[in-house]
């Protein structure tokens, strides 16, 4: 704790404060442009930090990271276009809120959630620090495989009304993920002789097409509609929404932190688990997907507090848990510091300064975004005939700049048409992308576990893996029972 206070005095020197602000602003600006997520933004701006003091440089880069994470939220809410996987979940309820003229609510809830999540996980990082690092290491391939299965079972919660349609979506995501090189052997699958498919389908253009472009096609059906600033157009929560949203934020904070400790998870998992958890705990699960503020609050909080958790394996073991953290690790090294257990001893000022700056960064983002939320929300009032072309251009540029190839643009266009067809057929889109993201990692971990245990059953010898798999089975069984019950009751209602 003493270290944290010491860190605060470093983080709030005028220079560091200034660069933290710059980082947050730049990050947010970059995050709003689809196609450039936190990973790319942080990597591209590392050279800018060369001339700075190491602590200042790291603080600025962290600022870019949080800023970009929040920027992704803005586009998810306003134009249904997530820039990275963590924000896919945000679209589910954020965009419906925006359509109801409540974009301000979604953005504010996300800002507050991110702030609380950030602060709680920073505190946990400062208090628990190295003592929880061992927990992270317990997650080998078997445990990670089980965690991915658990994550997949959570996707069931997003399937919407029809189980069958949900399964269609899930299997589609699964098959898309299989395209390209097998993660272990390098065997090439389903590339149909197209060289660009050898590396697999890129997530960003797929995401932008399925969510953003397909929504655009829906909007184009009636160009003259303007989202009238309705009576509901306020940035405040309704009374009855206050409690569930607060609880979602608190639960999300702890959830995100603990998932962050586990290597190789990525921020989509905590967001996904949080969403499913909130939906199952809610008194009105039917409101999810139609604009439930807690459906935005929980996942947004979880993916922000994930950062604090993910810093622990980085600082204490030198193991980066997610792509962005890997880039931060690169930044540490470029400034002459090797992340690992000795870093706390050799460069305590940098570590504690960085931890404290996470506090400061979250405060800055909150201050920036509370007033800005209303301004951003006004964008949602732009008439479709002006909004659509602008969004199309931004999406095309985003799809191109993700991997600098026209192939990405093609992927986005095709995904857009598929997304539109799915919407017309009531097939939920979120499972496609989430399963797509989880499959790669899951397959790899499965193959590694089989090798380690010389067979599939060996996975069950790990208590953590067993627990997670049982949990997954329970979630699936529970949803099936609910599904059958609902079917029966709706049939009964139909009879009467």
């Amino acid at each position, binding site marked *: 704790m003493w270290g944290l206070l010491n860190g605060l005095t470093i983080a709030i020197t005028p220079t560091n404060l200034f660069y933290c602000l710059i980082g947050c602003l730049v990050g947010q600006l970059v995050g709003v442009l689809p196609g450039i997520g936190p990973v790319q933004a942080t990597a591209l701006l590392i050279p800018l930090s060369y001339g700075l003091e190491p602590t200042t440089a790291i603080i600025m880069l962290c600022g870019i990271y949080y800023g970009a994470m929040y920027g992704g939220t803005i586009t998810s809410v306003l134009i249904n276009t997530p820039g990275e996987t963590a924000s896919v979940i945000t679209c589910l309820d954020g965009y419906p809120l925006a359509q109801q003229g409540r974009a301000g609510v979604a953005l504010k809830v996300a800002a507050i959630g991110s702030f609380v999540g950030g602060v709680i996980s920073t505190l946990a990082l400062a208090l628990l620090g190295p003592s929880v690092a061992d927990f992270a290491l317990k997650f080998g391939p078997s445990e990670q495989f089980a965690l991915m299965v658990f994550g997949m079972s959570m996707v069931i919660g997003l399937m919407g009304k029809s189980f069958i349609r949900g399964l269609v979506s899930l299997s589609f995501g699964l098959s898309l993920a299989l395209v390209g090189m097998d993660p272990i052997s390098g065997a090439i699958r389903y590339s149909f002789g197209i060289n660009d498919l050898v590396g697999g389908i890129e997530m960003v253009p797929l995401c932008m097409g399925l969510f953003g472009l397909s929504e655009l096609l829906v909007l184009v059906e009636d160009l003259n509609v303007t989202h009238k600033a309705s009576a509901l157009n306020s940035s405040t929560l309704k009374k009855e929404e206050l409690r569930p949203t607060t609880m979602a934020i608190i639960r999300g904070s702890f959830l995100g932190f603990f998932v962050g400790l586990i290597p190789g998870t990525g921020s989509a998992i905590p967001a996904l688990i949080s969403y499913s958890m909130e939906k199952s705990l809610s008194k009105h699960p039917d409101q999810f997907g139609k604009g439930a503020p807690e459906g935005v609050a929980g996942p947004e909080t979880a993916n922000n507090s994930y950062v604090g958790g993910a810093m622990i394996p980085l600082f204490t073991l030198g193991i980066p848990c997610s792509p962005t953290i890997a880039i931060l690790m690169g930044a540490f090294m470029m400034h002459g510091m090797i992340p*690992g257990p000795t870093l706390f001893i050799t460069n305590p000022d940098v570590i504690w300064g960085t931890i404290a700056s996470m506090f400061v960064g979250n405060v800055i983002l909150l201050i920036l975004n509370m007033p800005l939320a209303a301004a951003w929300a006004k964008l949602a009032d732009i008439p479709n005939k002006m909004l659509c072309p602008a969004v199309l251009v931004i999406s095309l540029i985003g799809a191109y700049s993700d991997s600098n190839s026209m192939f990405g643009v093609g992927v986005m266009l095709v995904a857009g048409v598929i997304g539109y067809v799915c919407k017309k057929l009531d097939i939920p889109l979120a499972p496609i992308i989430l399963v797509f993201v989880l499959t790669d990692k899951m397959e790899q971990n499965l193959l590694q576990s089989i090798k380690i245990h010389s067979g599939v059953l060996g996975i069950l010898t790990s208590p953590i893996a067993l627990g997670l798999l049982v949990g997954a089975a329970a979630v699936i069984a529970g949803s099936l029972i609910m599904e059958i019950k609902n079917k029966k009751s709706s049939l009964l209602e139909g009879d009467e």
Partner: protein
Amino acid sequence: MMKKIVLCILFLALVLSLCSTPSIAAPAWPTKTITWIVPFSAGGNADNISRIIAPYFSKELGVAINIVNQPGAAGEIGTMAIAEADPDGYTIGVINAPDIQISCIVNDAYDLDFFKDLNYLATYTATPISFYAPQKSEWNTLEKFVKYHKEHPGGLLFGEGGIGHRVLMATVMDYFGIQISSVNFNSVADVVAAALGGHIDAAGAGNQVISQFVSGGWAPIAWGGTEKCKDFPDAPLFADMGLFTDFLNVMTVLLTPKDVPAYVNERLIEVANKVSRIPEVRTQLEAINCVYYFTSGADMDKKMKDYYSQIQTISEKYKSAIVLNN
């Protein structure tokens, strides 16, 4: 008669144009921004190295250099993009050896012709790979590691982070006549995490991650490169055993498409040599834990091609250990 005159004029024009092209065009390059393709994601090792050296190139050449990441398929897609770019000298790039050789050898579907499609100009890094094991294990020296494998063929789980590591493993298997059973991980970071968590028994990984291994109670049991590990001088060098593993050192090599004019390559090599004499370049590369090693021009080209045949020999012998789907 008329025909002959026309032919003569045409011939003269052709000769003149051929003669004049280099002398006129040579000084004219470069006049605009150069695109520098990195076939890996931003933040990876090749990307970090490029972002360190490109500014020095830009300063020497007097034009801006735009780094473009084209990741995918272990660098295969971006490398293809460099090979297929207009050979005007305005698209250059980097690739990691030995990955490119291995791709060309083991991936039958990969169209790149290693010998015909690219020019290999220079490298600033060559980071060796080493073997690590837990200090408290029964196989905490290379000798014991080999002995254990003789008694229990394939008895240990050997974690590795890529195809280059498997080639080294195959080289060791060949040398000692033992059978090692490997588990592949996506990146070196994943190997380290699995090692420290006790999910694997031994590992092959770059020299640069030694500090992480040591923090978890692991130590090198055999060391790559030509200098002994400072903190663990007992770990033998592969080189001292007569095991030549230089061809597996990770080099990030500057490339141009095959048909660029000779003056572009000459100028780039000249700049590369000049940049290699700037002390900060070395300091900055060592800060990101790369082992500094500069070579350029004909030496570079020869190294790449020699290594190709070495990798090919070992790959053919141990195809099933290297290419996992066989």
